[in-house]
């Protein structure tokens, strides 16, 4: 299937059939997941209703990291297999991942205020997430800065792959730094094992976010494919005038 979709026209056709199925499915799973999260799930005995922020925060954080890894893998496939859609897929994924990162940071801050008494602590995970946002911004800036798509794809791929090598190093270094400056002990969310009545809605919410990513990626990737066709037509028109 992977190679079958390498032809952009064929990709447009197949994704044109997939999207009308995927989009309503995403909407349905979203509604059910957040019905579970907001109505069915019981409040936490320690955190009260505040625990419900977790149903947004955890999926957004997981996907934020996952999308960056997805981008790096897509670029590696682009380098190795020269799959024509791989680089475009990574580009289409970037803004989605960046928004997930912002959601993760904001909901994390709003969860931290009632739980820890402050919006922001320089905790290893929070700091790494913030750096991930910087990596997303740099990656998108590269696509904007380079005009020619082939070249932009290569350069952006280098940036994404170097970034993904660095994510664990950054995580490790921030953890080291954090243990040196350990602040007063915090009430950590997710410290204890998660009860099944919380875990089930959480898994549904993660599924909903993953489906949302797939849907948005597909729409964005289709637009990317059409954009390249438009670019070629414009170039051809300029060429025929000259």
């Amino acid at each position, binding site marked *: 299937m992977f190679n079958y979709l390498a032809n952009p026209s064929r990709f447009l056709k197949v994704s044109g059939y997939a999207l009308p199925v995927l989009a309503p499915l995403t909407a349905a799973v979203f509604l059910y997941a957040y019905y579970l999260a*907001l109505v069915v799930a019981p*409040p936490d005995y320690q955190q009260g209703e505040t625990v419900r922020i977790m149903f947004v925060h955890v999926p*957004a954080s997981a996907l934020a990291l996952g999308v960056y890894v997805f981008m790096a893998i897509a670029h590696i496939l682009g380098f190795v297999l020269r799959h024509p859609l791989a680089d475009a897929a990574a580009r289409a994924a970037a803004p989605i991942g960046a928004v997930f990162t912002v959601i993760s940071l*904001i*909901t994390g801050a709003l969860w931290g205020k009632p739980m820890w008494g402050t919006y922001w602590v320089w905790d290893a995970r929070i700091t790494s997430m913030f750096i991930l946002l910087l990596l997303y911004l740099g990656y998108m800036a590269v696509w904007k800065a380079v005009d020619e798509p082939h070249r932009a794809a290569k350069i952006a791929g280098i940036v994404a792959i170097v970034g993904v090598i660095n994510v664990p190093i950054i995580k490790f270094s921030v953890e080291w730094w954090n243990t040196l400056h350990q602040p007063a002990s915090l009430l950590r969310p997710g410290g204890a094992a998660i009860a099944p009545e919380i875990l089930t809605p959480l898994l549904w919410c993660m599924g909903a976010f993953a489906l949302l990513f797939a849907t*948005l990626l597909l729409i964005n990737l289709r637009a990317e494919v*059409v954009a390249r066709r438009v670019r070629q037509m414009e170039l051809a028109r300029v060429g*025929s005038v000259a």
Partner: protein
Amino acid sequence: MDVHAKHVEFVFTAYGVAALLLVVLLVYVLVRARLIRNRLRMLEREGAPRRRRPSAAPVKAEDELPA
């Protein structure tokens, strides 16, 4: 859920901000796709050729794929 619980305003703000950001993202993605498709239709209506005609130098296969 209990809408009068302590700190419940943080829950509402978090869900509100997340929903707002997701809607903005969705609108951005849809509008971008629509704009690009309109541009393609306009070019097709003007009868622009799909790609450069291979006149003197044949176009490399790699360049034809919108990779």
